């Protein structure tokens, strides 16, 4: 076992892990942050997406030990008290989720994407979401949510 120390949602956290434990195991099992979901467990679906030092990564495809010293943001880290993050609010308003399983990953991916590309085209949003799968919505309202969030975050709506 080894001790891993990292900053999760602004708080320093430590946990004992096996070398083969994945970052998603650390988050869900050790830190009880179960908002990060495991969909495929094979690097395909994006449900486990979190930010690692600001970059969207699939936490099922990274060992916890590799995140030693890193800053990790999960879906739990976005809302400020009762106020949803603009991306979460946009999903709420545009009906961007049905079962909600894919949503945390979608939101975390969009968090990085919209920071780098605050005024994307619909096509760019669809391309950015290519590593995130949704079995329910048909993506239409997820794309609408992304564009809505982009407008809010630019101060236009």
């Amino acid at each position: 076992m080894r001790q891993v120390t990292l900053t999760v949602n602004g708080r320093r956290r430590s946990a004992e892990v096996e070398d083969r434990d994945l970052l998603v195991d650390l988050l869900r099992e050790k830190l009880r942050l179960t908002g990060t979901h495991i969909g495929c467990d094979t690097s395909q679906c994006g449900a486990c997406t979190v930010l690692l030092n600001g970059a969207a990564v699939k936490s099922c495809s990274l060992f916890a030990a590799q995140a030693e010293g890193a800053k990790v943001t999960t879906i739990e880290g976005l809302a400020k008290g009762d106020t949803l993050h603009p991306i979460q609010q946009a999903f709420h308003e545009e009906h961007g989720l049905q079962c909600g399983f894919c949503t945390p990953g979608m939101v975390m991916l969009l968090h990085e994407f919209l920071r780098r590309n605050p005024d994307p085209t619909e096509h760019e949003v669809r391309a950015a979401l290519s590593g995130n799968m949704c079995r329910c919505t048909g993506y239409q309202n997820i794309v609408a949510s992304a564009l809505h969030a982009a407008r809010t975050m630019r101060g236009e709506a």
Partner: protein
Amino acid sequence: MIPAAFTYHAPRTLGDAVRLLRAYEGEARVVSGGMSLIPAMKLRLVQPEHLIDIGRLGELDYVRRTEDGGAAIGAGATYRSIERSRTVAAVAPMLVETVRQVGDLQVRNRGTLCGSAAHADPAADAPAALLALDATLHTTGGPSRRSIQARRFFVDAYETVLGPTEVLTEIRIPKQPARTGSTYLKFANKASRFAIVGVAAAVTVDRGGVCTRARIAVTGAGPRAVRATASERYLEGRQLSAEAIAAAASRASRGMEFIEDVHGSEEYREHLTGVLTQRALMEAARRAGV
């Protein structure tokens, strides 16, 4: 899915990484972005006893201009940092075009160009671009440091000339000649985005529109990425017309070995190789100003 147990090492220097590789020769693997290795470990297709992480070595995380106007890309450079690099955009826009087509954003945030080359997945995109750009691959950790030309690097599916303790430290892309146009086109597997067939083409023309240099490389079609030398030879010295390009493309599969899998038969891949070679050459010629 839980990988077999192993010991994780996070060396602080490249020298330490090589020492670990030598100490555990035969039982160790380096991990860089982990985007090929970790999924394979989870499936227990690979079960190293020691995992040596070179992905956190600051000394390998760079993209820089070389003295001779080319680009040097360190083993730590992710696809995303290459996508955003002005140096690569200036030296080899085709490489930017290629890495943008790899997987998805999350994979590109972790995966590295050197990792893709070392892994030598027959369906990977980067090998085609490296071949068509005449890249050289620099290593350390073997009996001596080596710099290997891309066309000598890829041996077979998942096999390169790298030895068991050798680390690929840097890929160099030489400055391309004036009036060179290039592109990378792929027919992607719709689910994984890997190449069923991908073709990288770079053509250089003189002022009269005669092709003075052609580099064409094909990935996905066979067990390893290869140059389409028959097409290259046909074009060099000829006026770069649509007819010449069509004739060159019809020679693309000469001497090439094709694979068959659930995504397509050998005949299908051979057909795609010709079609994509023609399209890539037309676009490269347009970009060269023909």
